[in-house]
């Protein structure tokens, strides 16, 4: 506890407030939350501008803005929040980082922080404080935001999990009482579903979000785009095996998956044209909120499951990761850090997670206890999205290369080529190898 002693004399209002609210918190949090102190003195007259990705569900932004208002009331710091489509935040954040002007805090996605780590404020104190208080950060958070294992370049926010979404009755009819836990069983299930005329379907078009299942597929068989030293190793026997598996999967798919973009599988599932797909919780959310009786009728039958585990024996999931970056150019670094600390505290973060309705999975272990994950058992699989997440540039270092290779759909294209038979698995892997080497060239 040297950390504690060093900071003890700095103890200020923030620490006391946190400790006090901890005392008032629900009993459920008691064993998980460990009192910590952190004193951040916001600058006088501070004002903050936050740029974040626009909500996927209304409950997210509603809860977020309630928290922002609470922060302003408590500290007197005015906070302006701008929203942009999540794919538009990336270029804007890069420009802000490199021109040294713009929002003080940016909530962005995936490996953005790794593109300009030296333009970001060191938030190690906030992250260590939160980590100690809330049971620690998941490993993927560290890969993304603590690239050197010491310094935190951003505060993890969460991940939008995509899980297996399926129709229970269709699985039963095909002879499966539970969703298979491994890839062998998964393929058998897909084949049985196809035989029953209720096939599955997974997006193979250039779908930014729902195409991520192709990462899971490659990793689950032991393939990876790059090794730990960023050497491209996608053209490997493991990848070929994964691609052969993909071919067998594709033979069971509903027609047209090569053209599927992000919305297609939602539409097809809600119209009962596919009985299993990968998706965020939005399909279930729609079945609860839709005005269409045909869609609401599905509510009871929709079930969720984690991705099956492949020959590698560990979960290898790929989801959309969210970070919170404080830009170095901010005039109010302490206010910005205090804002992030405040938003991540249980009194704020718990209602926000609830507002997100299961869309977002927490980065801190203690929030596994958030009621949203148990209030409806169908939410539970989404709880572990960030826990089981592998960054898209696995197993290499994150940066421009991993970002570029992801945006260029190298893995998605490779799987689509091999699955559809447009190329042999070997050809597809060789092509992906060549394309990826361009991004990872030294």
């Amino acid at each position: 506890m040297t950390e504690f002693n060093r900071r003890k004399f700095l103890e200020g209002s923030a620490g006391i407030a946190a400790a006090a609210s901890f005392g008032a918190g629900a009993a459920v949090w008691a064993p998980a939350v460990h009192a910590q102190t952190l004193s951040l003195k916001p600058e006088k007259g501070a004002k903050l501008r936050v740029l974040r990705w626009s909500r996927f569900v209304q409950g997210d932004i509603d809860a977020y803005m309630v928290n922002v208002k609470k922060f302003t009331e408590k500290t007197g710091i005015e906070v302006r929040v701008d929203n942009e489509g999540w794919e538009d935040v990336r270029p804007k954040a890069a420009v802000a980082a490199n021109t040294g002007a713009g929002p003080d805090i940016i909530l962005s996605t995936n490996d953005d922080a790794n593109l300009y780590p030296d333009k970001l404020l060191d938030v190690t104190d906030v992250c260590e404080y939160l980590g100690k208080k809330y049971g620690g950060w998941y490993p993927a958070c560290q890969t993304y935001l603590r690239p050197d294992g010491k310094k935190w370049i951003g505060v993890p926010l969460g991940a939008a999990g995509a899980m297996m979404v399926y129709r229970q009755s269709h699985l039963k009819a095909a002879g499966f009482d539970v969703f298979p836990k491994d890839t062998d069983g998964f393929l058998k299930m897909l084949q049985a579903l196809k035989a029953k005329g209720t096939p599955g379907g997974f997006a193979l078009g250039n779908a930014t979000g729902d195409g991520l299942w192709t990462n899971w597929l490659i990793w689950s068989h032991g393939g990876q785009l790059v090794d730990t030293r960023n050497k491209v190793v996608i053209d490997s026997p493991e990848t070929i095996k994964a691609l052969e598996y993909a071919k067998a999967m594709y033979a069971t798919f509903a027609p047209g998956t090569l053209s599927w973009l992000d919305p297609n599988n939602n539409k097809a599932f809600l119209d009962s044209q596919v009985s299993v797909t990968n998706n965020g919780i939005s399909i279930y959310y729609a079945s609860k909120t839709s005005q269409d009786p045909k869609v609401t009728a599905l509510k009871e039958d929709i079930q969720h499951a984690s991705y099956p585990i492949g020959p590698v024996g560990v979960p290898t999931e790929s989801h959309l990761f969210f970070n919170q970056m404080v830009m170095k150019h901010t005039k109010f670094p302490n206010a910005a850090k205090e804002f992030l600390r405040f938003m991540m505290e249980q009194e704020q973060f718990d209602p926000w997670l609830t507002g997100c309705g299961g869309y977002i999975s927490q980065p801190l272990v203690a929030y596994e206890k958030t009621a949203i994950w148990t209030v409806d058992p169908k939410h539970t699989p989404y709880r572990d999205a960030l826990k089981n997440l592998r960054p898209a540039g696995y197993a290499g270092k994150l940066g421009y290369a991993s970002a570029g290779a992801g945006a260029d759909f190298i893995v998605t294209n490779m799987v689509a080529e091999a699955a559809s038979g447009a190329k042999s698995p070997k050809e597809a892997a060789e092509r992906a190898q060549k394309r990826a080497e361009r991004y990872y060239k030294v």
Partner: protein
Amino acid sequence: MKLLEKFQNSRNALGWAFMLPATVLLLLFLTYPLGLGTWLGFTDAKIGRDGEWIGVENFSFLVTDSVTQLALFNTLFYTFVASVLKFGLGLWLALLLNKNLPFQSFFRAVVLLPWIVPTALSAIAFWWLYDAQFSVISWALMKMGLIDRYIDFLGDPWNARFSTIVANVWRGIPFVAISLLAGLQTISPSYYEASAIDGATPWQQFRHITLPLLTPIIAVVMTFSVLFTFTDFQLIYVLTRGGPLNATHLMATLAFQRAISGGALGEGAAIATLMVPFLLAAIMFSYFGLQRRAWQQGGDK
């Protein structure tokens, strides 16, 4: 005062002064961005990060890159087929609209509709028409018993290419048709009367009066049409994002994917720069089309 008066009386100085605003606009909003884009193509700039000059490295990579090669093929194919169809159908429509029809102005106005609707919106309409699960075209054909499974409009590489071309043609015809109609109306009816007296058939009238007199308009209209088609972006971005298997990636969509989504600004700019020679070729084609017109009229050019 004397100076001002002198200035006002000088044709040269006034001429330059009047041209100044246009020159500034051209330099600021056309030359500078074009120059900057070209320059970026020779750097390894990332979004928000200044690049280093790397010479032709981007280009030498791109000519060997299979995705870029495919995008170039797609773009040329898309532009060629769509332009030919737009020209043929547009000319046909123009000839029809040039006849004396009932509700003439109404039809002429209605024809413009596809051109007026924002591309992104009409693209979404086509996206539904082509949907693998919900296509109304497939549904109708199924009901008629003509097909036994839904057509995979956007999921098969060649189907996807033709589907996007059809959507582009639908959108582009009004521009061609209305512009050619304007051209048709400038042709004096006396030519047709004279040729009719000489016993010319409608085909002969078309071949020897309409077509030659319409050539300059055709040259201009088709140049624009080719430029629009070659640089198409919205339609592809909404319908396929370049898929399936990159079969519908055009130069413009690939440039965007690499430069903005992927952050490789330099490489994206290089792809965009690669489009310039083709666009120049289209302009030259039109220029020589115009030349031919002067020669036909016995002009002194």
